[in-house]
Every structure is written in C-alpha cells, then in structure tokens.
C-alpha cells in the first residue's frame, strides 16, 4: 500500500520546507509517528522521478559538515499535485470511513 502512495508521501514531506533525501525520510518518520518503515534507498528514485515530472526542483548545497547535499523543493506544479492528491485521498478516506463506520462496531461490543 505504501508503495502506491510513495509520491504523495514524498510531496507531503516536502510541503513544509526544502530538504535533502535523509531529511525527507526523517520527516516521513516524524509525521507518520514512525509508522512507515520503507527501505530508505527507495526515496531517491522517487525524488528523481518527481523532479523529472516537474513537481520538484533540486540544487546542491554545502552542509555544515562540508558534505555537498542535493536539496529538493516543491515547485508550483508540485504544490498543485499535492493538493489534488490530498483531496483524492481525503475523499477515499471519507468513503472508507463511511463504509466501515463506528455504528456496527459499537453494536458488536
């Protein structure tokens, strides 16, 4: 399930501020309450793919440690795509919530 929504997850992780790959993973962990445990390496092909699609831009930056990092940021198109996917997810989530409901479960208990 996570695999199918990786692009949405990455876009959401970058919605606050630009970040490099390692920080994107940290942000995903933090925001999801450590729920997502994906192989860290799979984030980079996703970042490259989203950049190629024009949803992200990136540039090299020198960190305090002296290492050069590739920092990614959402583009205007990326923000639009995130808003669109967020709305789709919300509709899906509402629909599933409506289907599962709380009423049948309370009756069972």
């Amino acid at each position: 399930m996570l695999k199918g929504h990786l692009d949405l997850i990455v876009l959401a992780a970058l919605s606050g501020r630009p970040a490099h790959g390692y920080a994107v993973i940290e942000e995903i962990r933090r925001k999801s309450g450590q729920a997502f445990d994906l192989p860290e390496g799979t984030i980079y092909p996703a970042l490259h793919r989203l950049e190629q699609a024009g949803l992200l831009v990136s540039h090299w930056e020198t960190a305090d440690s002296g290492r050069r990092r590739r920092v990614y940021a959402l583009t205007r198109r990326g923000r639009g795509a995130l808003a669109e996917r967020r709305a789709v997810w919300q509709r899906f989530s509402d629909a599933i919530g409506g289907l599962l409901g709380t009423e049948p479960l309370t009756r069972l208990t």
Partner: protein
Amino acid sequence: MIDAYVDSLLLALRHDRSLARRVRREVEDHLWEAVRADPSVESREAQRRAIAVFGNPGLIAAQFAAVSLQKQTRRTGAAVVLIVAGVYITMKARVAWYALMECAISNEIAAIAQLVGSIDRYSFWLSVVLGAGCWAYSGRGGFQVSLSRKHRNLCRRFIFLCSAAAIALVVSVISDAVLTLLRLPKVDLSLEFLIPTLSMLCEILGAGVLVGQIRSTAQRVAITRTMLEAL
C-alpha cells in the same frame, strides 16, 4: 563498507554516467549521515546498519534505471522531432541556394533526379509522420518500476516507431546526397561546392546522432528489463 555498497549500486547504473555521478554523491551523503546519527555503536556496525536500512542495491538500481529510461525516451522523442525539422530546414536552404546560384540539373540526368527526388520526398514525409508518433509516445512515459506487459509493449512500439522514422530519414538523406552529387558541377573549394557539401554533412551528422540515440534507448530498455527481471 559504504564504498563497496555504493560501487555495487553504481555498477548497475554505468549506462547513465551523469545519473551515476549524482547517485554516488547523494547515496554516500545519506549513508554517512546515517552513520553519524548512530554514534553509540562502533563505526563498522553503524555502516552495516545504515546499509541494511538503505535497502537492496539491485532494487534501488532498477528503480533508478526506470527513471533513467523515462528520461531517455523523452530525449529521444524530442531528438526525432528536432532532427527531422533540422534536416527539413537544411534541405530547403540548399534548394534556395541552388536557385540563387542558378544551379540546374542537366537534361541527361533529369529523369534519374526526378526519381530520386520522389524517393526523397516520400521518405522524408514518412519520417515526419513517424517522428510525430515517436514524440507522442515519448510523452506517454509511465515507465514504472515493474516493467509490466503494458509498459513493455509501450517500449517496443516506441523503439519500432523511432527506428522506422530513422530509416525513413536515412533514406531521405541518402537521396539528398545523390541529388547533391548530381547537381554539383565539379569538386573544388568554391562556395558553389562547399555550401551544399556542408549542408549535406549536417544532414548526415543529424541522421547519425538520431541512430545513436535510438540505439542507446534500445540498450537502456534491455538493461532495465534485465534488472527488473532479476529482482
């Protein structure tokens, strides 16, 4: 340990050097940052952990290869259109030059020139139609991590269309070369000889670049498929 891991990842990406360079710097930076964030254990153990969490290098390389393939197909689709347009402009410029220099074909070879001219025209317009198809296909993209049957067919059709467009363009360029040879009066260093010759060289170069680009795309399709099948 990290160097060996990165090397194994990059070995699979050697077909795309610019991507491999960027991946090396990003992955090395990531892994060393993970090691730094894990100071409680011995460095070698921290490296082993960072690598384990990073994931299977074969899977990551295959995902990068799919991204690289998508970029390559877009580039090839654009190259077909640009090169066909470039050949068209060069052809028209040469014809205008002939008109300016009043360089006509002699009556003895007019029939041959007409036949070659027809082949040139039809093959060129065929390359235009096929090139437009390539460009449309390249925009469809969608070369997913798993090269499914649908995406394999997409790749196959794309390579077929590009190859057909390139063959039609090569036939057109050869016909142009024949027409140029029929028109040129003698080999010398005059503008009358050099301008058409240089324009022909530009056409040949363009066709060569296109063939190289398609060959490279076909190779990447094969490499990506092999990598994905090995998972």
